[in-house]
């Protein structure tokens, strides 16, 4: 049981990913597909960020840095701060996500201009 509770968060993130993935594959509307894609990517990001979470950790900005000038004497303990690395990675992933969404929307507008519909099946019918 302890195993399940300790991982409950992970399971919910994975469920979100499944929702997104399902939307991406099964929805026939092209915008819905993109909505699913964003849900998938953001839950992936959520999952990643949660890797860095730490019980008893605080935001990864050095406390009291301003008073110390160069701060060479400042003692920083790893257990005080959450892990910054996943945050960095996920900043990149968010940007990639918005880039992909932009390009996909550009293609989508082109598609709509040509076929006057957003439904995948109808477009296949008109190909």
């Amino acid at each position, binding site marked *: 049981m302890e195993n399940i509770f300790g991982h409950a968060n992970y399971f919910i993130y994975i469920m979100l990913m499944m929702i997104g993935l399902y939307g991406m594959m099964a929805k026939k509307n092209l915008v*819905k597909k993109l*909505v699913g894609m964003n849900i998938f990517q953001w839950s992936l990001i959520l999952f990643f960020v949660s890797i860095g979470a730490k019980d008893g950790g605080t935001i990864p900005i050095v406390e009291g840095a301003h008073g110390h000038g160069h701060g060479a004497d400042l003692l920083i303990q790893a257990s005080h701060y959450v892990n910054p690395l996943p945050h960095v990675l996920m900043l990149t992933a968010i940007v990639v996500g918005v880039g992909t969404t932009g390009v996909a929307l550009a293609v989508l507008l082109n598609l709509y201009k040509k076929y006057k519909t957003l439904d995948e099946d109808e477009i296949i019918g008109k190909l």
Partner: protein
Amino acid sequence: MIWQLDLILLVFIVACAIGALVVKDLLGSVILLAAFSLLMCLLWIEMGAVDVAFTEASVGAGITTVFFVIAVFKTERRSKD
């Protein structure tokens, strides 16, 4: 971390995700997506990931939504599924 808050946020997030996919009105779907993203920001702030939350708030709830809304306005609002 406060697990009660966590739980409520997660429930809302899941609800938003399912809602965004189920709603037949594309604009509603997009707005639900923005809400999904915003709730996620709260979760991140709670985890201490302020930078990510900041970015997600400006990108996920902001720019991406703007793009989506433009796309929906330029195409059509109704969806069959």
